[in-house]
């Protein structure tokens, strides 16, 4: 420590603009500048501004005024907030139940087949390539609630009557999750598949020497090897579902009866849906609250991935 610090200290003492340029300071700055500028204007600045704005009342036209915690209080008093939080949790929970085990199962099966991994992966990944907006609009057609609707026709083949899908308070959210799962499962499958194919074959060989059955190998070799990636995917899924917006926005606009109004949709409404000027204060206040929660999650995620990638 002391040995490295000493020269640095002398260097600092002798530093002049001339030596700074000579030592490449200017070139380094030239390379750093685009990043610094972009991040200042489009990342750091807005982050700070968001926090400031959450304590302000502003409508773009009149100068902003500080209102203390009024925005936070207004948000917390909004009867829709509870609905939105519960809906978001419901979406997250449904997405976990439907969307989490399926890709793992599919990936495990796909990693076992001797032929066709490539074609299976391509098929699985295809929905991910469809632009999300197109996917939602297409599924909106599928969810046609009339007896001749696409999905209702399919249900009819197996003797199930027509379902209301998006037209029902009870079914709207599950419908959103089904589409979201369809649209995203492929990406997860590919990630799990990659993790599975990276499991060292020696581990299986060793287990076989001990006479392990297929099930025992799956339980004692495969799953432990996947633990890390499963956990990461879990956190990422929670992060993504907490910010779910596209599906409720395009499928239902938050209805029926606010049964699909999510937190992000509420933020959007505060900011952009009021007909004559947004309530940016309330929007940023809710954003800040959500962000603190999510930042905590991403911090956990980062700590864990950092640990895994260094261990």
């Amino acid at each position, binding site marked *: 420590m002391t040995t490295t610090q000493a020269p640095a200290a002398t260097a600092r003492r002798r530093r002049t603009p001339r030596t700074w340029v000579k030592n490449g300071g200017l070139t380094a700055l030239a390379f750093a500048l685009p990043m610094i500028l972009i991040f200042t204007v489009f990342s750091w600045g807005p982050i700070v501004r968001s926090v400031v704005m959450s304590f302000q009342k502003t409508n773009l036209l009149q100068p902003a005024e500080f209102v203390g915690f009024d925005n936070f209080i207004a948000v917390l008093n909004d009867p829709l907030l509870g609905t939105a939080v519960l809906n978001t949790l419901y979406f997250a929970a449904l997405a976990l139940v439907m969307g989490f085990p399926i890709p793992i199962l599919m990936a495990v099966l796909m990693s076992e087949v001797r032929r066709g991994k490539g074609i299976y992966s391509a098929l699985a990944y*295809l929905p991910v390539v469809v632009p999300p907006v197109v996917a939602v609009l297409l599924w909106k057609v599928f969810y046609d609630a009339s007896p001749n609707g696409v999905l209702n026709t399919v249900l009819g083949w197996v003797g199930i009557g027509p379902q209301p899908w998006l037209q029902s308070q009870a079914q709207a959210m599950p419908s959103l999750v089904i589409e979201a799962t369809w649209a995203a499962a492929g990406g997860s499958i590919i990630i799990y598949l990659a993790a599975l194919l990276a499991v060292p074959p020696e581990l299986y060989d060793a287990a076989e020497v001990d006479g392990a059955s297929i099930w025992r190998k799956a339980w004692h070799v495969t799953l432990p090897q996947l633990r890390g990636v499963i956990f990461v995917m879990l956190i990422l899924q929670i992060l993504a579902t907490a910010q779910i917006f596209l599906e409720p926005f395009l499928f239902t606009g938050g209805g029926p009866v606010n049964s699909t109004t999510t937190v992000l949709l509420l933020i959007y409404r505060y900011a952009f849906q009021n007909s004559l000027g947004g309530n940016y204060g309330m929007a940023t206040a809710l954003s800040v609250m959500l962000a603190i929660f999510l930042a905590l999650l991403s911090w956990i995620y980062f700590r864990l991935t950092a640990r895994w990638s260094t261990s």
Partner: protein
Amino acid sequence: MTTETTTPAAQRAGSAALAGGVDTRRSRPLRWRKRRGPMIEDSRGIVSETDLRQPRVRRGMRVVHVFLSVTLVLAGLGPLLWLAKAAVTPTQDTLREPFALWPNGIDWANLSTAWNDIHIDQYFFNTVVIALGAWVFQMLIATTGAYTLSVLKPRYHRVLGSLVLATLFIPSVVLLVPLYLTVVSPPFLGRDYSLLNNYLAVWLPMAANAFNILLVKRFFDNLPREVIEAAQTDGAGPFRLFWSIILPMSKPILGVVSVFAVIAAWKDFLWPLLVLPDPAVQPLSVRLPAVQSQTELDVFLAALAIATIIPVVMFLLFQRVFLRSAGLGGAVKG
């Protein structure tokens, strides 16, 4: 995972998902290598060759094959095939018998109507422009930024690096409103220089992507220092080093970042919706929902089909890009 490509934050989460899988693997500089995973047909899994000799297991594997084929074709290909069919089917046929194959003939005119009347061509072009610009800016910032942080290392690089990394923890939902107001009225410039309806409003915020910088920086960190030192001894200045040594050695990771950048820009919805209110400059993702209620179903489905075809074709190209980068990366690493 749910697809969330609506906000810059969500994109970050999305790409982070890909990286997440990657991060857990140890071969740090070559995380894209995983992409090759699915193509490896000879690696072994739970079921061994010995297991396969049991008839019970072989039957099981056949069941697995059937299950995978049926499920993946139905779920992965099914909806797209239906879309392809419906795109050239008259509205009433689609409404009455969604699964009948052209009971009243094929209506090819849907496609041209969609292309000409909904102006898919123009919005497609806009989408391409947005994706290309986003790619240029993201590459520029990611490579110069990573070069600063990994190679040049000015004395403030630690602070800078932490500040950039810190933004990874800030979900971009928090940016939505202030970033929007920044675009409406850029700092120091004011409303007269509003970036609304200007593609810069999409490109520049996308370039502030810490994830890309992290990805490229880690790759740079793992480049052989001897090569860099040798170049410096040969008198290569920082610009030459960057352009002629570092970048050519980094093609694999640049390919990965490119793919992320283009896909993210292609999929983005909420942000362009907000900052590009003028329909003439909007991308497909924003336009398609906007015209839905004024468009007859068959034409609308044709428009959806056209909007889908392009990324699907590109997907095939992406696969090759990934393969090639994997190959190149293996060589560098080797």
